[in-house]
């Protein structure tokens, strides 16, 4: 009985985090982006500095008609948003927030699980692009697929470097064995991981699959209402997950002063700092061209991550 209660409680906490953190990141993006462009951003919804803007957006999305194109592959078209969104919820379960089992579910091969499931999220875009019966959607879907192929590899290699350093695949285990000098040691890997993650989320400057000036909105062109909102939510949940994972793997998760009592706060702080960087990069850089995107992955990120693995191996052998 107690076990069931424990599991239920953990799941509820993860669900609440899943529903709130992406909204907080989204609101932060509204505001940060506005101020970086000399604007104020939302100011009306909710009264105080537009805090309820995303709630209002949600209400608007719910009211809209749910249109499925006549030639679309109905079933696939309809479940695609769920396929895009749910993997991030699953990943969130495995991300450790604080020490002493402050994690949804401690999985032995956590790193493996997390990376595998994150890859599934991109399938949602691919399904949406294919099922929409729209050439723009198809182009977007194919670009998504190409991007997934190109960036999954450096991401895995960078994560493998951390796993080598820690000698474990368990995420809490990795944070457990973290020392401060890991961050400079794994710096290249961290940059590669973060960049590749951005590309996988299709965030600017890697948003070629949804390049709105060329292919309308890529795989999401035909979506309206709540399903479209799910895709947007998936993007922000992806930011949370990517920032959380980078925090756990490269920035030491809950490590920090008084980490025994406020470790979870450190994780959250680091996650939000990284989410800010994600937003900052979006505001600063223009979209990369499709070929530049591929070139960056294959000629820069993959060699860099291989070099990182070599460095990790050498250091590991030297210190053991």
């Amino acid at each position: 009985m107690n076990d069931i209660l424990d599991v239920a409680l953990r799941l509820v906490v993860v669900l609440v985090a899943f529903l709130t953190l992406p909204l907080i990141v989204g609101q932060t993006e509204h505001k940060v982006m506005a101020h970086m462009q000399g604007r104020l951003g939302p100011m009306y919804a909710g009264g105080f500095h537009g805090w309820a803007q995303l709630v209002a957006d949600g209400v608007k999305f719910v009211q809209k008609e749910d249109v499925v194109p006549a030639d679309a592959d109905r079933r696939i078209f309809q479940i695609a948003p769920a396929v895009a969104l749910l993997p991030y919820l699953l990943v969130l379960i495995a991300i450790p927030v604080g020490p002493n089992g402050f994690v949804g579910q401690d999985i032995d091969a956590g790193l493996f699980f997390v990376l595998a499931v994150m890859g599934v999220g991109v399938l949602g875009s691919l399904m949406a692009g294919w099922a929409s019966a729209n050439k723009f959607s198809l182009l977007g879907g194919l670009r998504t697929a190409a991007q997934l192929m190109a960036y999954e590899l450096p991401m895995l290699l960078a994560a493998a470097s951390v796993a080598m350093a820690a000698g474990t695949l368990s995420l809490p285990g990795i944070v457990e064995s973290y020392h401060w000098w890991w961050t400079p040691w794994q710096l290249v890997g961290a940059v590669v991981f973060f960049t590749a993650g951005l590309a996988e989320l299709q965030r600017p400057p890697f948003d070629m699959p949804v390049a709105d000036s060329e292919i309308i909105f890529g795989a999401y062109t035909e979506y309206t209402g709540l399903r479209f909102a799910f895709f947007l939510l998936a993007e922000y949940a992806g930011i949370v997950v990517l920032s959380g994972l980078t925090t756990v793997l490269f920035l030491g998760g809950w490590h920090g002063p008084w980490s025994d009592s406020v470790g979870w706060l450190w994780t959250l702080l680091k996650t939000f700092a990284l989410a800010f960087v994600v937003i900052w990069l979006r505001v600063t850089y223009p979209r990369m061209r499709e070929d530049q995107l591929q070139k960056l992955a294959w000629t820069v990120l993959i060699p860099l991550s291989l070099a990182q693995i070599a460095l990790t191996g050498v250091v590991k052998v030297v210190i053991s």
Partner: protein
Amino acid sequence: MSIPGSGLAKGLAVTLRTMTRRSVTAQYPEVQPELPPRSRGVIALFEENCTVCMLCARECPDWCIYIDSHKETMPAAAPGGRERSRNVLDRFAIDFSLCMYCGICIEVCPFDALFWSPEFEYAETDILELTHERDKLREWMWTVPAPPPLDPGAEEPKELAAAQKSAEKTAAAAAAAAQAQAQAQSQEGEA
């Protein structure tokens, strides 16, 4: 030769710096804008000064000023004098749907009957309402601000120079008269 990636860092610095500055968005309906001096909002009429000379209506490039008037005969001021005629203003209207806010009417008015007011919130849903009749133009008169002080190093206004000149002339004349009188007195004493 610059360091590779310095351009990327510069871009990040630009956006971060912009974020720390105040944003330029004007929250207009909540916060009234701070208008510069001599803002051209609406034209006000001080009808006591108007002599119906029609200069403004004739100079207006848009023909947006409507003036109607009639003549009244005034009885002679002194017995045996001539009767004087006087212009009386019947209608003075400015059609702000035509007005292009050039300010020529205000410039040409020889009697200072027209003024700029900075009020600008007089949008209407019916275009005919934008023709402001004389009572409305008079209402605007009470929103006309005092003339702003001169900019540093600005030329002296012509009115001031003219007044100075005439004052000097009067003073000189008075001095000359006093001198002449004194001379006459001294001549009398000698005689």
